[in-house]
């Protein structure tokens, strides 16, 4: 766990956004069963930015699905102390028949928010991702980076704009920038950091890119593959320059080590 000592008791909902305790998840039954996660313990503090790192098959997506409530763990506990977690996928997955603004409004609509409140909230969130002017465009009229920002605004709407407005937010991101070109990815990473600071939402960010994880996260958690377990974690908050490079090197070395153990098996 983190090195910092907490004043509040560890179970206190006041400081924890998500806590996973000894979470197991397997798919299928009998001899064909596949264990995706085995005894994962993880804690994300309120407003904390945690990057989950791992090679393919480490159950990153499974873990996010459990936190999002899209799936149930086979054993163990997943406890969230936030508003409904928002999920962002690798694809923007905007609804092609709705305008950008309507896409952002959709989670508010599902939460039963009144129309004028919805409109106001959606344009506020589009403003946050600097896309206010394109609210009435359809997804096919936007670039990949713009679509992904609309998806971010929509995800924020589902965690920050719903009924329990004062509850802290939790944003789950499943390799959201992996499909973008390098320039756009770089800009969106900066954008995400800005929005994270502006909103104070907690972020659980899944990636297989060590540099991205170190740049964005306050903490990097490395998962092993098949089955997924927490191998090690590093505090990387505020690292710059040489320190940042050193952290990337170190985490990369450990990641390679973890991957190479699979060759023997």
């Amino acid at each position: 766990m983190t090195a910092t000592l907490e004043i509040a008791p560890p179970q206190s909902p006041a400081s924890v956004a998500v806590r996973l305790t000894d979470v197991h998840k397997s798919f299928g039954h009998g001899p064909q069963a596949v264990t995706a996660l085995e005894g994962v313990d993880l804690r994300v503090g309120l407003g904390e930015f945690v990057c989950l790192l791992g090679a393919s098959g480490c159950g990153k997506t499974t873990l996010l699905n459990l936190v999002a409530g899209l799936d149930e763990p086979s054993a163990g506990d997943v406890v969230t102390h936030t508003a409904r977690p928002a999920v962002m996928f690798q694809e923007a997955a905007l609804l092609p028949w709705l305008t950008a603004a309507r896409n952002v409004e959709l989670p508010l609509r599902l939460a039963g928010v009144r129309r004028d409140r919805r409109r106001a909230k959606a344009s506020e969130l589009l403003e946050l991702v600097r896309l206010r002017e394109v609210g009435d465009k359809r997804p096919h009229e936007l670039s990949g980076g713009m679509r992904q920002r609309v998806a971010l605004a929509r995800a924020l709407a589902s965690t920050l704009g719903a009924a329990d407005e004062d509850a802290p937010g939790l944003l789950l991101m499943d390799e959201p920038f992996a499909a973008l070109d390098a320039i756009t990815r770089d800009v969106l990473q900066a954008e995400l950091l800005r929005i994270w600071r502006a909103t104070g939402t907690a972020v659980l960010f899944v990636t297989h890119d060590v540099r991205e994880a170190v740049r964005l996260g306050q903490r990097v958690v490395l998962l092993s593959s098949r089955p997924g377990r927490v191998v090690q974690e590093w505090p990387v908050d505020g690292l710059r320059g040489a320190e940042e490079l050193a952290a990337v090197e170190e985490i990369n070395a450990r990641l390679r080590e973890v991957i190479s153990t699979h060759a023997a098996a």
Partner: protein
Amino acid sequence: MPRPDLVNEPGAPTGGGRDPGLAAVEAGLDALDAPAPASQGRRGWRRTLSAALPPLLALVAFVAVWQALWASALWPEYKLPAPLAVWNVVWEAFREGEALGILWTSVHRAVIGFLVAVVVATPFGLLVARVRPVRSAIGPLVTGLQSLPSVAWVPAAVLWFGLNDAAIYFVVLLGAVPSITNGLVAGIEQIPPILPRVGAALGANRWESARHILLPAALPGYLAGLKQGWAFSWRSLMAAELIAVSPQLGLGLGAFLQHGQALSDMTQVIAAILLILLVGIGVELLAFRPVERRVLRARGLVGVL
């Protein structure tokens, strides 16, 4: 909301000391990467003209060939009448008001049959698409029914219901329902699997997911099914009217065609065929095409429509 660039990440690889700022870079990227807006093309009457001209030319060419074949007198008049003779039959029928009655009889039957088919096929399609046992049980049957010519149902319908409207509607329904059902099922199948997941992640329950995600996402396939369903309604109706002829059934286009055959009147036969075609094309152009075009355009799926 705090607009100023609170992020000029010192670690961000933007290079050099002259960082233009995140907002500016982003605005630049948006301008460069956003797809160019589709050109609107010509508007108004020019567009209508350029769309209508090629089919009109084809029609003129067709009539010209017909006229030439007739003039060459290769076939006797009762086998190949002159275009003008056919036109006169159609014109007469319209002038005497007979044609409108015939068209009304057939078209209102087809429309009612089609609407009933939509009401039946839509929940049925949802059921087949979303409930696995239903799908494995009757999915293949529905597809099979689509390839069964609905004219095959006419004898059964006449024996079951007698020579009346019920028999005709029965045939029309059996023609249209499988098409519409299949269209809806195909439309739902083609939904990218990420969309229902998004719905769940945004907090949609089963009903909301159907209402806000599944049905709109399936709309293009559903529309294609409706279009085909209409075509099948119309054909089935013609088949039924052609075979089941009776004074109680009134004079529809199919019966008009059948009379032409009974009287060995080739001009009336061809006139009837042209009218049947005219209704089919008219409904397609006036009802389905605009709706389909609008739906596809809104999704950026502008084809060659």
